[in-house]
């Protein structure tokens, strides 16, 4: 099955409640995928402080040792900070994400890097989704957008690396409910184009495809429209960037999806019950996304001086 819950906050006054609202949504999708889970949290002052980048690496390395190693590898002003959230180690530093990623790779050769960007923090692991969320301190996190996934594995092993979201380019996250049938062919084709992969997971191929298209000039909408012409299988996808969120379903649309929209927020979930606790749900516009249609919502720019 797998469960998805996604929330984009439109009203800046509600950004302090992002984590609490997402926690409520996550609790209702646990039964759809209790083996592992992941979260992508955008615009959090705690996880992605202004002016810093964030890298998530799956490792059991000692955070203090890793911080020392990174200090030696990075310019002095980078000021790296390392926090372990179970299997996910979140690293922040005042450098571009690409520079920090190189340093983390040098410090932890062979470890999987599962999150990267300056606006998003990715945390994922194996275990009960609510226990994982609690270990991340989700309820106290503020921000602009949150994306969560509870996994019932079908196509590859139950590991933290195989959990969703897949974040293969800076600030670009993908979660998937379903399974792709032609992912092996597309992976071979992308490898021939020079794209590197972290896992044998089918959903990673979709994330790599979108990132590859966007690197070649597509925006999120056109990249997802291109995906529809290439990928075969069952899918409900939610894809987020630093400033937008998109939903798309395959033309058969077996995998569930429901969207609720108010002036204050946009929410998508696998099941209505995950939306039932959101403030103002009784007056929300609620609909099921049509098969084969790409829905995209841009995050409204925040005025100078407002909460980030």
């Amino acid at each position, binding site marked *: 099955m797998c469960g998805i819950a996604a929330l984009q906050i439109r009203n800046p006054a509600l950004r302090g409640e992002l984590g609490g609202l997402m926690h409520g949504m996550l609790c209702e999708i646990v039964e759809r995928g209790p083996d592992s889970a992941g979260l992508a949290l955008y615009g959090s002052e705690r996880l992605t402080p202004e002016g810093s980048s964030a890298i998530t690496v799956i490792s059991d390395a000692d955070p203090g040792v890793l911080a020392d190693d990174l200090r030696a590898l990075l310019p002095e002003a980078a000021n790296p900070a390392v926090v372990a959230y179970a299997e996910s180690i979140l690293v922040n530093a005042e450098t571009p994400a690409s520079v920090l990623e190189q340093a983390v790779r040098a410090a932890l050769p062979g470890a999987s890097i599962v999150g990267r960007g300056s606006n998003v923090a990715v945390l994922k692991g194996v275990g009960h989704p609510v226990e994982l969320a609690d270990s991340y301190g989700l309820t106290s996190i503020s921000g602009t957008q949150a994306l969560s996934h509870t996994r019932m594995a079908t196509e590859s092993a139950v590991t933290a690396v195989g959990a969703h979201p897949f974040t293969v380019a800076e600030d670009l996250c993908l979660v998937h409910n379903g399974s792709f049938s032609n992912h092996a062919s597309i992976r071979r084709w992308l490898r021939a184009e020079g794209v590197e992969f972290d896992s044998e997971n089918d959903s990673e191929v979709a994330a790599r495809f979108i990132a590859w298209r966007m690197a070649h000039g597509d925006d999120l909408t056109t990249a997802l429209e291109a995906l529809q012409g290439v990928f075969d299988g069952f899918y409900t996808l939610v894809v987020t960037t630093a400033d937008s969120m998109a939903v798309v379903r395959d033309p058969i649309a077996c995998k569930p999806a429901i969207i609720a929209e108010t002036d204050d927020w946009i929410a998508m979930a696998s099941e209505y019950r995950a939306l039932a606790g959101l403030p103002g749900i009784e007056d929300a516009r609620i609909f099921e996304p049509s*098969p084969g249609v790409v829905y995209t919502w841009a995050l409204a720019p925040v005025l100078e001086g407002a909460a980030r």
Partner: protein
Amino acid sequence: MTLIAAQPVTGAAGGDAATTVDLARSSVRELNRLLHDADDGTSFVVESPVGSHNIAVGITADLDVTVEGDVGYYFAGMHQTGTATVHGSAGVGLAENIMSGMVHVTGDASQSTAATGHGGLVIVDGNTGARCGISMKGVDIVVGGSIGHASAFMAQAGRLVVCGDAGEALGDSIYEARIYVRGEVASLGADCVEKEMRPEHLAELGELLQRAGRSERAEEFRRYGSARNLYHFKVDNAGSY
């Protein structure tokens, strides 16, 4: 999800007054056990459903169950007798495999509404998602709004009435059900064709609309059904196997 085994029932026990069950304090399992043990003629009001799955599944007595709010998957699945009403919307598989009796949703319903239903009447005042009436085997379905794609797929018996529009591939591989649509049909599925609206069709449609409390007139609808071309193997296709 909290399961509180506190006293689930408030209000009068027996008599004409409805028994109220608050799902903020009782589990769906406790509610359904209560419904399965209830006598004919009993009424229930269910509060705080907040999209829970499997509410009022498997009712076999002549009950009147009203839910105040939105329900999740499989509401009133396998419904046998009595009336189950939702003042709100319903999730996937509303009244799946209904045998008889009536299920009424005042809002919208998700995909696979009344799937495989053998009998009874399912009314959705709003819209439904994809696959409404998939493999229907005798159920009557009246939808006040529009229905999604692949509806009445492999429908075998019963009537599907749509006051709005129908999505792609309506009635694909249909056997013998009758479909009435008032609005636009995006496309017909394999072996589904428009058919003449004869007096007996106007009569049965008028009766269904009236039972569902609709104000539309039977003359405003068009009828669709099976061309019966898929019933028999065509020797011309032998080379395809």
